[in-house]
């Protein structure tokens, strides 16, 4: 028989008292944390579960859905939510709610986290002092929450393109904002986009800032060759906007929020300087195939205008067909004095100025700009030996004398060059390069299997570089394809190749210095 220790019999009552205290504490805390109950109306309660879905503000849970029911008119779902105490201050008249579901449209794959834990209700705190308990939920997530610094601007676009709410806005390839909203202009003739540019990028939006569609790959095939421009991989897939001021202009004056800008179709259009100069007609009697509206008019390499339109006309007097090309030419630029020569240029009448220039031999000529794309452009130059001609001011627009270019002969020459180019076995070169890389890879594999782990890092790097070289070889091949633009920037490719070479050299150097490491591994340094 064992005697138990003798405790005072009242001591046992401590147990329920402690339990009760614990329970009361938890209960009171729960009560203290309880905030107001609110009701939010949504079109659909898809993804919302009672007692599970949370309401989150800045990724902090500030409430929980308690019940979901149909509204009285059965047209929407009414969600009853229990908010926490600290959330009660956030509930104003302008507080916004929206359901965050996984979304793959718009700027990015958003709401990825909801895949894991289910949808939640996002919230944006209101600033209003007036409290409210019944809200109407937004159908689209509020991209721009009141607490993100930045400003909104308005864009007018001809069409929406592939933009959507949430489409990114880039400034020098940095994402600087998002499309917040779009709607048709009241007159139906444009799309009005409301965009939000985050601070500090909003300071970069100036009076002279241009906005343009940055969607997809902007391939600009013009007389200057092929220009490929893209903002980001994401923008290739889902579109986006970009903005920047014309690079050669000084910083424009600051603008206020909600200023309206025009949205250009592409960067080229956006950056085009405002049109100036006079319209001239240029009559050619040769083929202007590959001369397109927009083609530059240049004076010894400086673009001073562009082709506006191309027509055809028959001159019954001369019994010849002409091709009238209307071009806008900023003739004034020829008047700019050389810096330092001093004095204001004499204010001559443009007509007289043009006349004097033509007298000195100024003529327009169709020239070919690129051997590959055979784009044409209009060249203005002085041909003192050219037969005398005058500007025909009677015509509208006035006719500037032209000179038949040496295009015919040129075409023959180009043809010959092209034939020779055709014979160069670009494909084979590419294939050979690939094969070499493959065998190098195989050697690396071999090395990797047999060499010690110390070398692995170097090998990995070499392999990576090889892969890149492989890619580069691929692009070389692509360029060598008959219809590919050759004027692509080869610098990148060359860089890759040289990096691969450097990597190889490092490996070779190491092996040269420590040939035994192939067999025994890198020696450990003495401790």
């Amino acid at each position: 028989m064992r005697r138990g220790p003798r405790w005072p019999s009242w001591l046992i009552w401590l147990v329920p008292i402690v339990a009760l205290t614990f329970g009361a504490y938890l209960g009171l805390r729960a009560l203290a944390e309880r905030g107001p109950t609110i009701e939010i109306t949504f079109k659909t309660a898809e993804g919302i579960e009672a007692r599970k879905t949370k309401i989150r503000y800045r990724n902090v849970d500030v409430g929980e859905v308690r019940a979901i029911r149909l509204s009285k008119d059965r047209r929407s779902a009414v969600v009853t939510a229990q908010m926490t105490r600290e959330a009660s201050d956030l509930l104003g008249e302008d507080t916004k709610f929206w359901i965050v579901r996984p979304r793959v449209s718009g700027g990015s794959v958003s709401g990825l986290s909801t895949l894991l834990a289910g949808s939640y209700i996002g919230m944006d705190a209101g600033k209003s002092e007036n409290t409210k308990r019944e809200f109407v939920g937004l159908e689209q997530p509020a991209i721009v929450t009141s607490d993100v610094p930045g400003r909104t601007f308005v864009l007018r676009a001809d069409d929406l393109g592939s933009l959507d709410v949430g489409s990114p806005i880039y400034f020098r390839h940095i994402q600087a904002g998002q499309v917040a909203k779009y709607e048709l202009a009241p007159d139906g003739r444009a799309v009005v986009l409301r965009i939000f540019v985050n601070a500090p990028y909003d300071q970069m939006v100036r009076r002279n800032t241009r906005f343009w569609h940055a969607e997809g790959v902007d391939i600009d095939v013009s007389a200057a060759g092929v220009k490929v421009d893209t903002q980001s991989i994401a923008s290739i897939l889902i579109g986006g906007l970009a903005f920047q001021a014309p690079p050669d202009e000084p910083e424009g004056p600051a603008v206020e929020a909600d200023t309206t800008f025009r949205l250009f179709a592409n960067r080229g259009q956006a950056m085009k300087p405002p049109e100036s100069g006079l319209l001239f007609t240029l009559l050619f009697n040769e083929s202007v195939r590959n001369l397109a509206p927009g083609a530059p008019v240049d004076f010894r390499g400086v673009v001073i205008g562009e082709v506006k339109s191309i027509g055809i006309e028959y001159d019954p007097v001369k019994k010849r067909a002409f091709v009238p090309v209307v071009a806008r030419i900023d003739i004034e630029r020829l008047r700019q004095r050389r810096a330092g020569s001093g004095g204001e240029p004499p204010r001559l009448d443009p007509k007289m100025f043009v006349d004097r220039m033509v007298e000195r031999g100024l003529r327009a000529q169709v020239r070919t700009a690129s051997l590959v794309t055979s784009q044409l452009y209009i060249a203005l130059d002085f041909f003192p030996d050219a037969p005398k001609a005058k500007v025909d001011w009677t015509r509208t627009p006035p006719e500037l004398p032209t000179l038949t270019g040496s295009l015919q002969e040129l075409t023959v020459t180009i043809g010959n060059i092209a034939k020779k180019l055709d014979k160069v076995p670009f494909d084979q070169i590419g294939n050979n390069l690939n094969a070499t890389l493959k065998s190098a890879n195989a050697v690396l594999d071999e090395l990797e299997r047999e060499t010690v782990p110390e070398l692995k890092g170097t090998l990995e790097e070499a392999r990576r570089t090889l892969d890149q070289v492989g890619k580069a070889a691929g692009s070389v091949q692509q360029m060598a394809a008959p219809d590919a633009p050759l004027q692509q920037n080869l610098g990148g490719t060359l860089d890759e190749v040289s990096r691969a070479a450097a990597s190889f050299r490092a490996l070779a150097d190491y092996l040269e210095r420590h040939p035994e490491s192939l067999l025994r591994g890198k020696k450990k340094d003495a401790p």
Partner: protein
Amino acid sequence: MADPLIACPECDTLQREIPLPRGGHAECCHCGEMLYRSARGGLSHIVALSIAALILFLIANALPIAALDLGAAGYAETTLAGTVAAVRDQGRFLVALMILWTGIVAPALEIGAMVYMTVPLWLGHCPEYLSVAFRIAPMARVWSLMDVFMLAVAVALVKLGDLATVSPGPALWAFGALIVVLTLIGTLFDPREIWLHAEANKAGRMVAEARQ
């Protein structure tokens, strides 16, 4: 009056019940099974512990037993009843029933019966359905698997540990305390005491009525 007879529940051997010193216990002379224990501290201990158990049971059921924290990705927690509901929603109705019975209903019956029996007796009354409660209590105790459930929470936490941050919920503290209290009740409670008090209370009331 001679010492009352007692039969060993395991081997049915008839023995005489002898009074025990405080804290002692009697064993069967034939098979060694424990027959009865001297009441330690008496009914008031059991009343106190039963009330504590009831409070802890309510807490354990109201609060989440485990929480899953996925950082920014979200947060999930479950209560005891939530577990039952989740299993039921997955179509495992019988499994849900088993968890409901062993995790919630049986413990509730056990604790409820204890409170129902002991509190009125301690206050000098005799509860009306004493015999029913008396029979329910041991039956419910067999099926009450709260301690097992606690272990299961630990196992679940370990299993999920490498997937996400899982933390035991506040109810687990209540659970632990509840299991301790229930074990204490199990060791301190002597069923015979119920009837001793019941008879004493009845006799007391009869005396009181007779006096009137």
